[in-house]
């Protein structure tokens, strides 16, 4: 049995709202092992993104425990959680969220600089990553000068900058056309093949079908886990 990258036990996330509390996650238990490829599907508002945020340590569960590489995340101070995200987790978002004033190269270099990588190491890794996503020729372009697919590929390169164990992608093809979405899906396949654990939240059945394990969610609960 391979080691768990992240493990959630009976995790709930309740958002206090003026009209009353909203339960986005309700007692979710989940284990993701190294190198897994997991797809999460379900109707809008079923808690997919919230689960992704909790697994990625950008949100904390209201109840339950979350262990990342056997460390209890809930007890970590904000700075420690930032370091964990920086070194172990990569995020890809539907809307890319690249820094508009930075070039593709600088967007990819940023997390490495934050992690303390030397200039030479950063240069080598950034060049490798842009080459990996097929954008070496776009290194000096700023996001406004890139297409949607290119921006998403830069976002993936940024997510991989510090060689994370876990890549979390929230609707990574949601703003892309079919052909470009296929390119991104192929890129995620390659990442998985190279040994990174990949979790993809998607509405796209074709993307979900590429995952080795599929979770189906409804009303904040996992109603089906093909891996069980």
């Amino acid at each position, binding site marked *: 049995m391979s080691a768990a990258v992240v493990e959630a036990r009976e995790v709930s996330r309740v958002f206090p709202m003026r009209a009353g509390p909203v339960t986005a996650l309700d007692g979710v238990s989940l284990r993701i092992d190294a190198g897994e490829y997991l797809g999460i599907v379900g109707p809008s508002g079923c808690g997919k993104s919230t689960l992704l945020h909790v697994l990625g340590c950008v*949100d904390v569960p209201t109840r339950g425990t979350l262990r990342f590489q056997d460390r209890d995340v809930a007890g970590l101070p904000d*700075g420690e959680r930032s370091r964990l995200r*920086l070194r172990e987790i990569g995020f890809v978002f539907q809307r890319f969220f690249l820094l508009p004033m930075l070039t593709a190269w600088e967007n990819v270099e940023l997390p490495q600089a*934050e*992690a303390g990588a030397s200039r030479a190491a950063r240069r080598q890794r950034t060049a490798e990553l842009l080459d990996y996503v097929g954008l070496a020729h776009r290194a000096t372009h700023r996001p406004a000068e890139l297409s949607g697919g290119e921006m998403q590929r830069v976002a993936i390169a940024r997510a991989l900058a510090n060689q994370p164990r876990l890549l979390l992608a929230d609707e990574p093809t949601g703003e892309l056309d079919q052909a470009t979405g296929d390119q991104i899906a192929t890129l995620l396949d390659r990442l998985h093949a190279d040994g990174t654990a990949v979790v993809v939240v998607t509405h796209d059945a074709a993307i979900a079908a590429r995952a080795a394990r599929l979770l189906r969610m409804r009303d904040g609960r996992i109603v089906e886990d093909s891996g069980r």
Partner: protein
Amino acid sequence: MRAFRLAWISVVRQPARSGLGILGVAAVGALLFDMLLLSHGLVLSFRDLLNEGGFDARVLATDMVPFDGPRLAHASRLAAQIAALPEVAAVQQVRVVDAELAGASDPSGHEGLTHTAGMSGRDGATHDDRVQFVGNDMRVRPLWTVVEGRDVESAAAEPTVVVNRRLARALGASPGSRVALRGRCGDAADALPPVTFVVSGIADFPFDAATDNSAGGTIESAARLCGGEDVDRADMLLVRSRDEAGPGAAVAAIRRLRPDLHVVTNEQMVAQFSRVEFSYFREISSVLATVTLFFGFLLIAVLLTVSVNQHLGEIATLRAVGLSRGRVVSGILWESVLLVGTGGILAVPVGLVLSVWLDRILRGMPGIPSGLHFFVFEPRALGLYAVLLAVASIGAAAYPMRIVAALPIAGTLRREVVS
């Protein structure tokens, strides 16, 4: 990538936004800088003006403003007594007499004295006919500086005067010309006979206003202008202390000698003017400095807050990819420092140019000595300006920094996607 570099890139690569911010800060910074120069400039300039003649204390009959109070009696004897004090190096008697022009001639004297009442074209004494006659003891360094010709001679056969450039220009006078003045002393002003002087030179008078006609001569000439009345009286004695004693010791010695007189050092006089006469400018400049600083603060606070609110998704992403809260917050602070710093540096030369222009306008007011400046550069003002701008930049960044520090990562990402 350090927070500073990220802020630098943000400033450089958003030139329209940064340019607007920097220009705004430069404009309010220039005004702030000028207000700081004004708040202390008049005092500094007044001190320089008082010290210009090399005298560091003043003796007056009362504590009234010089030339507004009664004159000192037996001025020459008093001056001699004070000069004999071991703490005192020199004493100068000063008597200022209001006079009017009664006539003038060219250096050849061929045409004799012509009546000049009406240099402005009207009959009777006009503003341009009025002359301020400064009499002093020519054995001591006079209050004026000769720029053409020779200084006043006490032993000359005819009384001599120096005139300021404005009067010389108005009369077409040069060394050798003659000028007749009639003193306007007390009730007998109209009955006083004019006194004719030979112009020995042209001089600058430090307390001249831009519209003043001034003449300088001996203290005896000043008395003569008043028809021989009030002989041996002076408005003021100027005292130069010995270096080893200093003005404080000289003033103390004079007070022991003549406790009935009002004796002050230049510094005491500056302090008195600063407290009373100049307080108006200080208060005005304080209010305007506060207002301009507040505008600068608001400008940058709004600029950064809008910028932060426009990029909440990117900021949440930075946090999501692992940048610490401190790093993201310090980026905002650096951005504020860069905008305010650049604008603040640009503001200094702009403020200096503006201060020269404003100074010229203010010095054009009637009665302001041309040697007096309202805006005076001093390192202290620059230091205070830098401190105030630093406080403004930190203060302006405080609210957007708070937004960033308290930003919920997951909630923001969710909202940004939904929006």
